[in-house]
């Protein structure tokens, strides 16, 4: 069977076919780019933070009376929290990782701002920080209790030791990745800090930052008057532990402000909200656009079959088998889909190019385009399948009835 007669039949009712082709072209352009962007956002959201983020929550506490014993308060609070049932560990911190709030500073591998340099997000905590966050120490050792500096007044510079993520340390010391513990790095005043331990993986403050995994823990508490407690609950107990902690903190000392308790997961979802909104919107659009394209193809095929019952009957009467009729309609549909796919490829590339140019999104990965083309071909054939079968059922007698 040649394609020529199908083509000339199509040309006679061109408008419908062109409309469906257009729809397929637009669909391909939208779907390929939407799926590409969605996949990237989902990968971003799904990254391993390195922390036990589902079991951690935070509570800010602020003392406000003059001459308040801030460190006494912190020590008493933490001692109480660590003894509570369901609590794995608790530690003080300045900010909450993944929350979008934090501090960062620049460090160098040599004094006088020389050598390799890298910014790092840092959190001040005590010797319980590692276990509370649930991060894994790959090398070296945790802070000792005596190492923690309780700083009564704001001052520049950090204590002389730090736990840093592997990602950060490897940027500063690219040639000696096996022996990162014991290395010294310097701030912009050339004050030295020694790496006492290497954290395998941990995310810092700003999820949109490309250096999210460059993080440092410093053995520092204070100055007041505010502090945040990070608390890690045993798996599955976070809700009950949270309400118990809130009551216990208020009861232990009513003369300070206990702020709102929030889970780290909640901070994380908040930080990734725009990414997840984008992923959700694009997934919905992708699903709907595919359904409508299938319906459009189905509608056109049905229309073609309906208007051509006599033609089909005549062909059947002069010897065409059912298979011939089915393949005729499938081939017709394939041609319409292919035209759409062809135009759609160009459109998809243009849209992808424009999106990456205009909005700084990464360039469209061509595998997605190939996948989209194959997908739409299959979708087109599936949508035309039922009308084509119906066409095959037209009885040869129809041809004789209406002449």
């Amino acid at each position, binding site marked *: 069977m040649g394609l020529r007669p199908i083509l000339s039949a199509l040309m006679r009712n061109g*408008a*419908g076919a062109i*409309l*469906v082709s*257009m*729809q397929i072209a*637009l*669909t391909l*352009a*939208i779907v390929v*780019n*939407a799926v590409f*962007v969605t996949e990237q956002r989902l990968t971003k959201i799904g990254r391993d933070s390195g922390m036990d983020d589902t079991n951690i929550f935070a509570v*800010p506490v*602020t003392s*406000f*009376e*003059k001459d308040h014993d801030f460190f006494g308060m912190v020590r008493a609070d933490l001692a109480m929290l660590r003894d509570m049932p369901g609590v794995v560990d608790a530690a003080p911190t300045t900010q909450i990782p993944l929350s979008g709030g934090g501090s960062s500073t620049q460090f160098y591998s040599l004094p006088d*701002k020389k050598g390799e340099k890298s910014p790092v997000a840092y959190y001040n905590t005590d010797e319980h920080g590692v276990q509370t966050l649930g991060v894994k120490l790959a090398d070296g050792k945790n802070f000792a209790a005596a190492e923690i500096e309780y700083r009564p007044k*704001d*001052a*520049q510079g950090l204590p002389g030791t730090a736990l840093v993520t592997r990602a950060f340390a490897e940027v500063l010391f690219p040639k000696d990745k096996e022996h990162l513990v014991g290395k010294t790095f310097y701030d*912009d*005043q050339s004050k030295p800090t020694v790496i006492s331990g290497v954290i395998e993986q941990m995310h810092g403050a700003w999820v949109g930052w490309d250096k999210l995994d460059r993080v440092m823990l410093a053995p520092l508490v204070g100055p007041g*008057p*505010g502090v945040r407690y990070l608390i890690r609950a045993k798996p599955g107990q976070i809700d009950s532990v949270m309400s118990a902690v809130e009551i216990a903190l208020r009861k232990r000392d009513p003369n*300070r*402000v206990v*702020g709102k308790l929030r889970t780290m997961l*909640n*901070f994380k*979802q*908040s930080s990734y*909200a*725009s990414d997840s*909104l*984008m992923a959700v*919107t*694009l997934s*919905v*659009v992708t699903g*709907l*656009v595919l359904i*409508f*394209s299938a*319906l*459009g193809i189905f*509608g*056109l095929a*049905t*229309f073609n079959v*309906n*208007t051509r019952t006599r033609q089909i009957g005549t062909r059947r009467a002069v010897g065409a088998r059912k298979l011939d009729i089915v393949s005729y309609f499938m081939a017709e549909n394939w041609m319409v889909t292919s035209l759409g796919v062809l135009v759609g490829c160009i459109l998809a590339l243009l*849209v992808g190019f424009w*999106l990456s140019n*205009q*909005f*700084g*999104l990464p360039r469209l990965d061509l595998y997605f385009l190939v996948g989209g083309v194959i997908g739409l071909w299959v979708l087109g054939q599936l949508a035309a399948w039922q009308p084509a079968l119906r066409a095959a059922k037209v009885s040869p007698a129809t041809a004789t009835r209406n002449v």
Partner: protein
Amino acid sequence: MFAYYLRLALQSFRRNPGLTALMVMAIALGISVCMVTLTSYRAAARIPLPHKNDMLFVPNVDSWDPDNSYDKDKPGNAPDLQTYRDARGLFASTIPDRKLIMFKAGGVLSGGNNMVPEYVSSRMTTGDFFAMFETPFLYGNGWDAKADAGPEPVVVLSKETNQKAFGGANSVGKTVLWHDREFRVVGVLNDWEPAPKFFDVSNGSFDDPEQIYVPFSWGQIMELGSDGNTNCWKTEDIKSYLDFLNSECIWFESWVELRTPAKVEAYRKFLDDYVVEQKSKGRFPRPLNNHLYTIEGWMERNQVVGTDNKAMLIMAFAFLAVCLVNTVGLLLAKFLNAAPVAGVRRALGASRRDIFLQHLTESGVIAVAGGLAGALLGIAGVWALRAWYGRFVQDLERSLPTDYSTFWIAVGISLAAGIIAGLYPAWRIGRAAPASYLKAQ
């Protein structure tokens, strides 16, 4: 005649209920997705105080690092915040009709009648703040330049804070404790939720407004740091709060009100002169890069409408386009199927124009039905998103508002789109020669 066309349209729908439902659904879903994205886009793209857009300005000077521009991706941009010295330097100008400097701080608020002590976000600002941004007052007023100069221990509370501290009563003249120091309430704001929060976009375009307002100079007396962003570029030995205040670290914002073009020009010149003078003192190592932004320009400079926002809106309208192409195809099939009826009407004397209008009416009815259904679906979508994201995003009431004007925009777009979609099929059916259809009967 229109009523007759409407009746014909309804008859035609009854003949193919499935096809009709499909078309209405296509338009409805297209419109609903557009409406959801349009709601968040319009919330971000709103210009607050539009009548003051040519009067309020943000002066912007480039005190940054000689080796690196403030924003790698947009090297023409000066830093979005200012150093303390520059904020004071600009505030000294007598050209503006009104002027303010400010930063975001915080502290524990106690006292009041029966308030549970609470950490409140606080805006340290100068007296013109309230007049420049037209804040509504429930009780009392802001403070004057004398209170700024003192500074006098005065405070303006938000309505919510006044509710907590004084049960909502008129608290003007009463005192509260902030950082354990007494402040006298001079004013209480009424509900005021500017969205976007245009006067502090660097700390979050849809953040909650602050809970209390305190004269700027208390910040230095009480040695308060910023509760928002602080950025520094220079290596400086900072040993005290005063060192920090006089460093090149930026955390302050200035606004000016300039009511005449002549004043705008004069102020631009003042900015240039100021920077040149600072250069002679060894500061401002970068080339002259001063800007004077309007509210609208400032929103644009800070990308309040995010790129995701724009990309989603474009995707949504592309989806609507697919839905419309789909509808054109279905309408065409439907009209051609019913072509013999049109043939009979033509033979009985209906003109081509009549046939065209009749079918256009039919597609218009489908568009209106689809538009209304879509707009309702869009509102449901906004609610669903707010219910889902509201659990962890604090500012959703403002960044994704319930917005009835967007509802009518959606219906309008739908009607226009439906009529455009109906044009070709209606023209096509009107053009068909009656004889060919009559013969086939």
